């Protein structure tokens, strides 16, 4: 039986078991129908031209683990930002781990999607926001149909969250061939502020495929600062789809750090519905081996006077492949717009490949849109300069690459996180970067 059919037929049982009330039930039924109609994306589709899921979608994938797994705090300690006090929502193999988490309901909700979907208290929010911005086809529909767990974050008006929120997904690998469907819903009300860090981490060498969907609603004047850390095991694959809906005067930035994993696909989509909204998307990709990272971004400018900035840096070694597929779509109402997109890449090895496709689709005339894309090498003169001053070649290359990625790193607003990423980059390049940030 094909994987698609298998999933569709297992839906009935899952739906019965979840028993969530008519609203969610209807959404899920609709989603499975959409999935049946659209199926998995293939290379024939323009958005998936350079990324094939064929090798990952084996027929023995299952959606839910059969047994519960637990992990000890000391095993996962290193994945937390331990030198920083944070709220934590932790999942192990798709199940919530109360023991590792620090959640809250005081003045805001930092809790679980499963409880939000079932409790009456959250009904109004779910009705207004759940599944409202993620387009329902293919992998998103699959996630909607099966997602039973994830983070639910609700920040009420004027609330400035005192510390960052960490969302962590651990995979124990007790069971191989899992396709997990985490789902996050984040609603930030008027004038509120929040910082969120999301991480997917596999704890073993078993293959795992994660199909995550995150919906973020940024209401008027709200500010959201979102960080995605992707530094997974070589056998773990991640398809991470994020949809952000922005209202007027809001600011939302998403930083994506892709350092690991077998295949990583990021679908990052911004929809600007209100005037003066600002979207920032930045990313550093640093991969080697046979890794594959695909950044697929969209900024849909619907309202006038908005801004968007995209800055993606990539360094590719060995046989790794990188894809950047960025699109800026400007509706004819979205006048006086300033949209900027930048993608810079360095290939280190002869076998590495980069495919870049920065697109503009513009229907408004009074706009400033630009994109730039470069592929090149480290500056030989700069390298020589450093070597002449007694810095060995490896170190010099490391420094230059560090400098290359630095303007993305610079805009990270959590100092502890910045330090952490700095360390990962230094480790990846095999150099000691001697200055502390």
């Amino acid at each position, binding site marked *: 039986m094909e994987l698609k059919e298998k999933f569709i037929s297992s839906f009935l049982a899952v739906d019965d078991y979840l028993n969530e009330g008519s609203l969610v039930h209807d959404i899920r039924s609709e989603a499975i129908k959409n999935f049946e109609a659209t199926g998995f994306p293939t290379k024939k589709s323009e958005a998936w031209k350079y990324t094939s899921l064929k090798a990952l979608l084996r027929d023995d994938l299952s959606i839910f683990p059969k047994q519960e797994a637990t992990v000890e705090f000391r095993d996962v300690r290193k994945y937390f930002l331990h030198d920083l006090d944070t709220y934590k929502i932790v999942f192990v193999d798709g199940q919530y781990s109360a023991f590792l988490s620090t959640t809250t309901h005081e003045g805001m909700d930092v809790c679980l999607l499963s409880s939000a979907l079932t409790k009456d208290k959250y009904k109004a929010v779910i009705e207004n926001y759940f599944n409202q911005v993620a387009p329902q086809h293919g992998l998103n529909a699959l996630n909607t149909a099966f997602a039973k767990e994830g983070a639910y974050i609700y920040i009420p008006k004027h609330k400035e969250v005192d510390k960052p929120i960490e969302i962590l997904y651990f995979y124990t690998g007790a069971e191989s061939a899992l396709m997990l469907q985490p789902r996050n819903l984040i609603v930030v009300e008027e004038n509120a502020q929040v910082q969120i860090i999301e991480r997917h981490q596999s704890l073993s060498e078993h293959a795992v495929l994660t199909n995550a969907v995150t919906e973020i609603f940024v209401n008027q004047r709200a500010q959201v600062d979102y960080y995605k850390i992707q530094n997974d095991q070589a056998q773990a694959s991640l398809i991470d789809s994020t949809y952000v809906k922005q209202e007027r005067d809001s600011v939302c930035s998403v930083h994506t750090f892709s350092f690991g994993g077998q295949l990583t696909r990021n679908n990052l989509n911004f929809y600007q519905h209100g005037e003066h909204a600002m979207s920032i998307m930045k990313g550093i990709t640093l991969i080697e081996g046979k890794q594959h990272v695909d950044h697929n971004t969209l900024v849909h400018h619907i309202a006038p006077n908005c801004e968007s900035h995209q800055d993606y840096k990539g360094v590719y070694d060995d046989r790794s492949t990188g894809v950047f597929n960025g699109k800026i779509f400007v509706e004819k109402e979205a006048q006086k717009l300033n949209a900027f997109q930048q993608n810079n890449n360095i290939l280190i090895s*002869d076998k590495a*490949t980069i495919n870049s496709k920065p697109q503009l689709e513009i229907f408004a*005339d009074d706009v400033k849109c630009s994109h*730039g894309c*470069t592929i090149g090498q480290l500056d030989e003169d700069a390298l020589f300069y450093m070597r002449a001053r007694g810095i060995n070649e490896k170190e010099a290359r490391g420094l230059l690459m560090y400098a290359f990625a630095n303007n993305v790193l610079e805009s990270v607003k959590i100092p502890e996180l910045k330090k952490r990423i700095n360390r990962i980059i230094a480790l990846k390049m095999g150099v000691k970067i001697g200055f502390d940030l």
Partner: protein
Amino acid sequence: MGKFTEDDLKKDLETKEYEYGFYTDIESETFPIGLDESIVRAISKKKEEPEWMTQWRLEAFKIWQSMTEPEWANVHYQKPDFQNISYYSAPSKKPKYDSIDQVDPELLDTFRRLGISLDEQKKLAGVAVDIVIDSVSVATTFKDTLAKKGIIFCPISEAIREYPDLVKQYLGSVVPQKDNYYAALNSAVFSDGSFCYIPKGVRCPMELSTYFRINQAGTGQFERTLVIADQDSYVSYLEGCTAPSRDENQLHAAVVELIALDGAEIKYSTVQNWFPGDKNGKGGVYNFVTKRGLCETRAKISWTQVETGSAVTWKYPSCILKGDDSIGEFYSIAVTNNYQQADTGTKMIHIGKNTRSTIISKGISAGHSQNSYRGLVKIHARAQNARNFSQCDSLLMGNLCGAHTFPYIEVENKTAKIEHEATTSKIGEDQIFYCNQRGIETEKAIALIVNGFSKEVLNKLPMEFAVEAQKLLEISLEGSVG
């Protein structure tokens, strides 16, 4: 045996007709509409082609039948009905008009503003011309000069007969029959086109142009051009003309193949101004063209195009940089107004070492038009030290039009250096104000700014073309603002 009745005879005749299939009268000037094998054969016969050519066409036709029309381009149009087109029509010998007074005054006005001489105006509009027209004698002189240098420049149908070896070797070598839907169609039914061969080490002394082509008879809607520049030769080829072509043919599917052998250089310039349809987007020409050049070692191919016409344009002049140290260039201005749609760009395929390419594309959209740049820069794993620079700028006029950029960059070699940048902007009110203040009216100011915007590409055109192209831009954008 029974009596042979009238009914039997009728029946007999019916079966007979079926037996022999569809019959095409090759003597007639225009073929019946529709396309099948017999039409392909008939075109070939009409052109007095040798058997291998007929077979080549039939092969293409078979491939075409198995293909479907592509839909990926960012254009929307009513698909042409391929069985509702006549695939061959001999150029009419009779002039359309007896005197220039009968020609549409609007057309004449455009001619006048483009600065086209009266004789040429007559010729272009299809007015009967006197024997003593300058260009005829000019053409003869040109022909002599070319022949002395050993340059072959003739209609492709003549080349198929006279120089079969060259044609056999190169026809379809850059754009094979199965390349794409329209290339296959063209390969099956092309009626005429130009053939050009520059021998080793020869520098063609003049711009070869279809203006002065010896056999000036109508080029037909399925044009096939083959330009071969042998080692270390140079040629500059001009195609099209700035004058508006009131062509009745709705579908144009041309194929252009350029072959630049070691050290050769080909400069190919196009000005396209087919009928774009009226102000409401009715009518107009579909221009689906496949243009590609192959560069051997140290060769250089440079494409320059000014696209102002056609209702729908679908065109990607490309360079295959096969040889080491070869160079590809692409300079383009695409202007769309009213309901025109253009999806145009280039492909630079870097295969050889130290290959370089430059892409400069300027898109100007006005009215309700849609203008897309679609390009591919591909660096193969073996293409060491490849270098590419791309720049795509779009200018929007009014908020009913659209400008789109779809660049594809695929790099498999670490020594490659690629730069791509694209910008979209509009004509600043302050710029217009500045001009107005100095007594330049708005329409003129826009022309000035557009010309400045397109300068980088206009500069690449041969001089006489550049002057006309500049005026053409002005005329194309008339009435698009204010």
